[in-house]
């Protein structure tokens, strides 16, 4: 290859990589664990969704009745967005469409209500947003229902940084995550070009016990080459899922003349059809459960993902069901049924497994690839391993960067700066695993942990541990002690789960609570791997000593 080009690839790869490495590590680490979001939630709440799916019947009518005891439901719209584990729903209840019933809403609250999308707390009007648990038939607000699965999931697109009061069209955390994934895409392309000519030989080169520098380089390139397709997918789909505003905003302006709802309708994100309020009470009685049962039987290989009710109790009341096919049945497609309650007529029916549009195909493709939800647990485990490999690539990248610059001809000032950069990055990155395990163990001892408990436990322990490691000023020590802490804490996690809640491997196994069992096993395996790495490192240090002595 042209020597100049090679050096340009090299330099752009290095610079884009070192800028994003710490944040990208957080994204990869938290993202890998997010493949098991439902399992982590189940583990923390000690309610197995695998077991629950077989036993619990989702009683929508009960939920609506209980809402009706506290509120006048007439003329309201409902939105039930069913969570991926099927046993909970995010519920939105709007104010009444009946103007005679509608409470006077302060204009300010109205504006806030419009701005929030899904996650907010609701304004002063009597609309409501909450989380409903079908197993316990209980509703809680978002902060109460928050759990470790949700925390790691949201950490992986830096949602916690949204509180930084810089808004450039999209919340700060999301924007930052988007920029990081774009730079990641750039680093992937330059990295590929850099190794293009040696790609075949690099694939087979691994000299683990040669020199530290070659170990890191080999690890970086070998894992990078193996993981390239996977990482490219995640870089691209990641930008699309979190920071698509880069494209959506200008398209809205230039193709749709500023009409964003037309764009979203075209892209099948939302249906903005209006249902007129008729001011006539409905005569027929109606049960959501019956309709759900009927539709579930009809669309066997799909799961209903959302239930909407328009104009509750009005003659023009409609129910809209949305369903997604299971990925083994069809990779794309969205089922939709619009049902008019008055005459029990199905106004529109689109089967989830037939005739999906091109837009739906591309969007499903992006979505399934990013969530890894198309092949059950095995695919998620493979994706998890590839994700953790991504973490290793990042770590080795930082070390290559440092070692390459740790030479006598580099000015002292620069070397000090380089060391501190690597020191801080390594301390923050490597303490994530022990901190995650520590937080999860601590949650066992808090009776009803909410969002702020998780925030405090995770972020403070992360801060303390990072500061401690930064202060120790030794990369080898960080490596050694984080491994030690990881093996200890990851081992304690299943152990404490057994002692505290009697969730031993064999009990969860025999009860069919496989999701809880899975998390316990996952951490046991992580602990074993940490011990093995520690052991190998010790062995390696010993043989090296012997060699040195022999040479003398």
């Amino acid at each position, binding site marked *: 290859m042209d*020597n*100049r*080009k*090679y*050096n*340009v690839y*090299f*330099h*752009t790869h*290095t610079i884009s990589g070192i800028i994003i490495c710490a944040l990208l590590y957080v994204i990869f680490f938290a993202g890998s664990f997010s493949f098991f979001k439902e399992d982590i939630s189940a583990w923390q709440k000690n309610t197995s969704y695998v077991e629950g799916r077989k036993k619990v019947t989702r009683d929508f009518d009960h939920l609506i009745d209980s809402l009706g005891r506290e509120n006048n439901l007439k003329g309201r719209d409902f939105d039930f967005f069913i969570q991926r584990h099927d046993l909970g729903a995010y519920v939105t209840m709007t104010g009444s469409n009946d103007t005679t019933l509608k409470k006077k809403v302060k204009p300010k609250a109205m504006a806030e209500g419009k701005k929030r999308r899904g996650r907010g707390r609701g304004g002063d009007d009597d609309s409501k947003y909450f989380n409903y648990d079908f197993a316990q038939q209980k509703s809680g607000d978002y902060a109460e229902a928050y759990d470790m699965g949700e925390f790691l999931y949201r950490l992986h697109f830096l949602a916690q940084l949204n509180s930084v009061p810089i808004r450039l069209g999209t919340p700060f955390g999301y924007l930052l995550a988007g920029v990081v994934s*774009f730079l990641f*895409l*750039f680093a992937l*392309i*330059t990295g590929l*070009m850099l190794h293009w000519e040696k790609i075949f030989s690099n694939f087979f080169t691994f000299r683990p016990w040669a020199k530290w520098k070659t170990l890191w380089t080999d690890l970086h390139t070998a894992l990078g080459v193996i993981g390239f397709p996977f990482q490219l997918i995640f870089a*691209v789909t990641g*930008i*699309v899922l979190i920071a*698509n505003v*880069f*494209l959506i905003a*200008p*398209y809205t302006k*230039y*193709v749709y003349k500023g009409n964003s709802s037309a*764009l979203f309708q*075209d*892209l099948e994100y939302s249906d903005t059809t209006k249902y007129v309020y008729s001011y006539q009470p409905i005569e027929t009685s109606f049960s959501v459960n019956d309709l759900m049962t009927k539709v579930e039987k009809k669309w066997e290989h799909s799961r209903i993902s959302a239930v909407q009710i328009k104009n509750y109790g009005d003659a023009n009341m409609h129910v809209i069901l949305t369903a997604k096919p299971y990925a083994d049945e069809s990779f794309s497609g969205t089922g939709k049924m619009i049902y008019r309650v008055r005459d029990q007529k199905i106004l529109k029916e689109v089967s989830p497994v037939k005739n999906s549009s*091109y*837009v739906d195909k*591309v*969007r499903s493709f*992006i979505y399934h690839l990013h969530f890894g939800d198309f092949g059950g647990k095995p695919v998620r485990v493979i994706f998890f391993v590839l994700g953790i490999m991504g973490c290793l690539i990042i770590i080795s990248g930082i070390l290559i960067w440092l070692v*390459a*610059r740790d030479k006598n001809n580099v000015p002292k000032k620069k070397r000090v700066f380089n060391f501190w950069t690597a020191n801080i990055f390594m301390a923050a990155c490597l303490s994530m695993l022990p901190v995650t395990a520590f937080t999860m163990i601590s949650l066992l001892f808090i009776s009803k942990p909410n969002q702020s408990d998780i925030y405090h436990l995770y972020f403070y322990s992360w801060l303390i541990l990072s500061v401690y490691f930064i202060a120790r000023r030794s990369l080898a020590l960080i490596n050694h002690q984080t491994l030690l802490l990881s093996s200890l804490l990851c081992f304690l996690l299943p152990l404490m789960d057994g002692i505290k809640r009697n969730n031993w491997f064999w009990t969860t196994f025999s009860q069919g609570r496989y999701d809880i069992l899975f998390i316990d096993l996952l951490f046991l395996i992580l602990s074993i791997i940490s011990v093995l790495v520690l052991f190998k490192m010790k062995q390696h240090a010993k043989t090296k000593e012997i060699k040195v002595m022999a040479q003398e």
Partner: protein
Amino acid sequence: MPANKKHLTKSPWLRFVKILTGTVGGYTVMFTFHLLLSKLFLPQNIVVTSFITGYILWAVLLLMSFLAKNVWKVLGMYVALTVLFSGVCFIV
């Protein structure tokens, strides 16, 4: 070993121009290109396709500006392409 400095841009101004050309210029070329396609085909199909092709094309165009020996040529080309694409868009 870090990259050989002899092959890299030394002037910070020139480097700044490269970054700007790659990010902003690359973006406008990528966007106007898809905009043009959206006039020729069903717009929502192009919009959704660009979710994948757009970001990759943008990253490649960013790289091009670093790779070129003369960044001003690239800048000129990006401006010309942007004007061309958006001009055709306007006419169609």
